[in-house]
C-alpha cells in the first residue's frame, strides 16, 4: 500500500509546474534584455532625472492629470527650474514622438497596459 506510482506521478507533475519559468521562456519565448528605446534626438534630459522618470513617471502623470482637470493648473516647474506644460500629448509625446517605440516597448516588456489611450489619442495616431 505505498502508492508509489501515484506519488511519483504527483512529484513529476509538481516539478513540471514548479519549473514553469525555467522552461517556458526558453522554449516558447526569448529571455530578452531591457528593451531598446528610441530616445528623443534633439533632447538630452527628460522632465526630471532619468532614474526618477523610470520609477515615478506614472505618478507624475497621475498628479498632472489631477492638477489640470481638477485645479486648472497647466504649468509644471521641474526640480531644475525648467517649465513644462502638464500634458500627455503636448509634452511627453512631443519629445518621445513615437509611443510604440518608446512607452509601449517598455510597457509590453513589463506587461503593463495603461488605459490612458482609451481616451487620449497619440499625435501620430498610432
Amino acid at each position, binding site marked *: *500500500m*505505498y*502508492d*508509489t506510482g501515484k*506519488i511519483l506521478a*504527483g*512529484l513529476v507533475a*509538481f*516539478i513540471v509546474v*514548479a*519549473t*514553469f*519559468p*525555467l522552461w*517556458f*521562456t*526558453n522554449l*516558447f*519565448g*526569448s*529571455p*530578452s*534584455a*531591457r*528593451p531598446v528605446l528610441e530616445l528623443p534626438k534633439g533632447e538630452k534630459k527628460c522632465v526630471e532625472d532619468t*532614474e526618477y522618470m*523610470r*520609477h*515615478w513617471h*506614472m*505618478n507624475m*502623470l*497621475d498628479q498632472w492629470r489631477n492638477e489640470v482637470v481638477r485645479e486648472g493648473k497647466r504649468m509644471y516647474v521641474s526640480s531644475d527650474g525648467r517649465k513644462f506644460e502638464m500634458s500627455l500629448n503636448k509634452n511627453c509625446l512631443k519629445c518621445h514622438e513615437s509611443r510604440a517605440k518608446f512607452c509601449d516597448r*517598455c510597457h509590453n*516588456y*513589463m*506587461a*503593463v*497596459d495603461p*488605459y490612458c489611450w482609451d481616451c487620449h489619442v497619440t499625435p501620430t495616431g498610432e
Partner: protein
Amino acid sequence: MKFIGSLVAVLLLVLLAYLGVGVAGLRELFGVVLPYVSVVVLLLGIVWRVLCWAKSPVPFKIPTTCGQEKSLPWIKQNKLDNPSNGLQVVGRMILEILFFRSLFRNTRMDFRGGEEKVVYGPSKWLWIGAIAFHYSFLVVFFRHLRFFSEPVPWLVKLTQDVDGFFQLGVPAFYITTFVFIGAVGYLLLRRLFIPQLRYISLVNDYFPLLLLLGIGTTGFFLRHLFKTDVVAIKELALGLVSFGPKAPVEASWLFYCHLFLVCVLFMYLPFSKIMHLAGVFLSPSRNMPNNNRAVRHVNPWNYPVKVHTYEEYEDEFREKMYAAGLPVEKTPEQAAAEKSAGDNGDDASSGTDNKE
C-alpha cells in the same frame, strides 16, 4: 518570547540584506547565488520529504469519517464524508485541498445563557482567514510570473487586470496585495491575542507568518512607496531562468531584501510546517476510501508468522492425549483411516486442513 524571538530573527534577516547589499554591495550573492541555491533546496527538499513519506508504511486503513458509511442499498451514503471508492476520495480531496473543508467544519464551544449552558456553534474565522491568505498568496505569486516570462502569458495579464479592477492609483493597487497582508496579519494577531492559541504557538508558527508579512510589506513598499527599476528586475529574473544572470545595480537594497526573504522562505519551507502543501495530499486519514469491509488492507509490516495450529498439535500428541483420556477431534483410528484414504484418494483430506 517566542514571538519576540521570531520577530528579531526576521528583522535580523532584513538587516542582513541591508548590510549585504546596501553597505557591502554583495549583489551577486543576494541576486544570483542565493536564489539558485534556495530554489534547488526548495525543490530537492520537497521531493526528499515526499519520498520519505512515501516510504513510510500505512499499517491500517484509517480514513476519518464524518457521515454515513456505504451500507445497505436503502441507507443513504454520505459519499464525500465517507467515501467508499477512489472517485469519491478524489472528490473529498478536491474539497479539502481547494476549499479547506475540514477547517470549514470547525466548531467552537461556548458558554451562553448563563455560565451553565454549553453551546457548540460553527466558527468560520479561521477558515475565512486561511482561504483569504492562501488564495491571495497564489494570485500574488502567479502575478510575479510577469518578471519570469517573456512573452508574459495571457492568463497572467488577465489576472493583473482583474486584480487591479478598481484602477485605484498608479501603478494600480492590487486587491490581493491587501488581502495577503491583511490575512497574514490576522493569522498572526489571532495567535497573539487568543490566550489558548498563544499558549500552543511556537517559533515555527510565528516565524513563517512574520517572514510572509515581511515579504508582503517589502513588496508593497517596492510597488508603491520606495520604487525600484522593475525593468532591471525583469532582466535579472529572465537572466536567472536562462542561466545567464547579472545582478543589477539599478535595483534598490529593498528589492534585494524582498528577494532575500523569499529565498529564506524557500530554503526554510521543506523543513517546516509549510510542508503541509505536499502533506495534505498524503494524509492517510483523508486519502483512503473507507472500504475496510470490502477490500482487505494488508499491513505492510506483516511478516510470515510461524503458526502451529491445533490440528498439527493434535496430530503430534494424539496418541498420548487419547491414552490420557483427553477429548480429541479425531480418534487415532479415525486419523489413520483418513490418512490411508488421503493416500489413496486425491483431495479427501483437504476438508480437515482448513478446520481451525
